[in-house]
């Protein structure tokens, strides 16, 4: 089996003044080629950092540990990172808010030109041609979009343009960091359907970051749940959503309202631990309703509980 992404005890931290904050703490996971893989978690759980690490856009002040392979190439080993020939060629990225990621002074056509020129040395004309095909693929009218500035497009159009721009690089692994977080509900669904369609059309490996369990359920084949920098549960989406094993996953699922169904929504008290305070035990200890004695003193090891189904909890 070919692996698109393989992380082995990957940690990523950020240097803030004299302090070092570990946003991702020793996560291991695999993403198969052609798979739709979702990473869910609340804000600050480190899911965006994992996305940046895969896409190769960690800021220069980031610190890494462990190993990460993207498309079979070793890109992170210890604190050394080498994304040459991977970033933009094998893996590409759809930003969280395209409004902030596209230069407001460049027309959409020019955004394509600079990216494609930088990667493949295409001329302005060739880049335009390529942009046309991909914009069309993303469901936009190229004639109406190419000569516009980002602020002239709506959020949904911008996100489609950003997806087209990401695809135009020809990379087969697409990392989408909450691409729907700034969109209306019906636009959100459109974008998800677009990504689904593109996945089968182009043969993409899709790594989708979100905090929305519903979207994750609709889109993905496998799901990974992150909490405070740890990966607490990784497994096939259907099984995880139907019968979550980790208490945190069940909490995430129980607080999703279902339209037309009256059921008590549960929210567990408390907040995720502060990342600068390295606790000794399970990161979910403070909020967990099923905590055991072992939870306080030791971080639970990752256990295989089914076929490519892992959970990190002392309960199992």
């Amino acid at each position, binding site marked *: 089996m070919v692996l698109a992404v393989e992380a082995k005890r990957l940690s990523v931290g950020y240097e803030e003044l004299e302090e070092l904050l570990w946003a991702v703490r020793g996560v291991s996971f695999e993403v198969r080629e052609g798979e739709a893989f979702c990473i869910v978690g609340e804000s600050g759980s480190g899911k965006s950092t994992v996305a940046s690490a895969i896409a190769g856009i960690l800021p220069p002040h980031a610190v890494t540990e462990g190993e990460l392979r993207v498309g079979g190439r070793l890109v992170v080993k210890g604190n050394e990172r080498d*994304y040459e020939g991977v970033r933009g060629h094998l893996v590409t990225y759809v930003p969280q808010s395209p409004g902030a990621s596209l230069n407001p002074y460049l027309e959409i056509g020019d955004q394509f030109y600079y990216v494609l020129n930088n990667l493949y040395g295409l001329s302005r004309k060739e880049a335009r041609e390529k942009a046309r095909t991909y914009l069309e693929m993303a469901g936009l009218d190229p004639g109406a979009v190419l000569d*516009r500035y980002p602020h002239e497009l709506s959020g949904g159009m911008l996100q489609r343009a950003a997806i087209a721009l990401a695809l135009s690089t020809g990379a087969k692994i697409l990392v989408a960091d909450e691409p729907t977080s700034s969109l209306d509900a019906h636009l959100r669904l459109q974008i998800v359907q677009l990504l689904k369609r593109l996945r089968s059309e182009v043969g993409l490996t899709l790594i989708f970051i979100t905090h929305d369990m519903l979207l994750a359920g609709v889109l993905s084949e496998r799901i990974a749940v992150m909490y405070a920098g740890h990966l607490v549960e990784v497994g096939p989406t259907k099984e995880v959503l139907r019968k979550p094993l980790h208490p945190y996953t069940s909490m995430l699922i129980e607080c999703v309202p279902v339209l037309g169904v009256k059921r008590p929504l549960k929210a567990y008290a408390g907040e995720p631990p502060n990342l600068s305070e390295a606790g000794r035990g399970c990161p979910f200890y403070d909020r967990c309703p099923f905590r055991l004695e072992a939870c306080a003193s030791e971080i639970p090891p990752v256990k295989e509980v089914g076929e490519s189904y892992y959970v990190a909890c002392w309960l199992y």
Partner: protein
Amino acid sequence: MNASRARFNSAVGFLDLARRAWKRSARLRVGAFLVGVVVFMAVLGPHVAPHPSDGWGVVPRNAAERAGKPPCPEFPFGTDNLGRDVLSRVLVGARLALVQITLVVSVSLALGLLVGVCAAYYKGPVEALLNYVAEVFLALPALVVALALRLALGQGLHIVVASLILSWWPWYARSSYIYARAVVEMEYVLLARLAGVPARTVLFRHVLANVAPPVLVQAITDLGSVLLEASAINFLGIGLPPDAPDWGVIVQNGFRYIVSMPWVSMFPGAFILITALGFSLVGDSLREELDPKMRRRWKLWF
């Protein structure tokens, strides 16, 4: 393709900004008219002046009979104590006024933008050093610098221009630094850097392009203030020599006879006022267009 370009290009560039402001603001149109008059004078002045040699400061041969005439059909602005036609002097002076302010503002703008953007982009020691240098220059008043340069280098245009540049560029460095601080943190800058785009290209394509418009608008407003400051330096006799065709110098020439021949100082003074007013009206309305939050609640009569 060109048709669609023209239709959709309603965006954020400086020219578009000016076009939108033109439609909306009467103040911009008044300001542009005043500026237009002065530019027109500067271009045609020396050619249409009724007494060109008077304009350049040469004392006419029949000085005694022409001296100190109040405004009349032959000399619409009157004549000064040496019999020179004030209208001609003002017309010829327009060119020098515009040369001074465009030189000062364009050089300080280029220098300030470059320093500010570099300071924000290269963080750490470079940032500290550039900001420190800008602050040192910020503390220098133009008049004092002009005085020092006058003693070292003698009279001339270079004194006015150099002293004003030295005291104006840090303002642009300061404001472009502040805007650039926000821009360098944008994702497109980080992504471009990670993609291996050379620093120079990132600076110009991404940072400078996004920082320039508000600073440019500030610079247009400043054209008026620079004229006031330059005229002050010339009025005090630190800059241009006594008979130069400059409005500040002419005001100074008439100042000694302000009671007996007020027109000599009045007319060039009025043109200084008109030019400064024109530029600040233009700059003000452009700034409002750029940032609607700064729009005033009250309105002038135009």
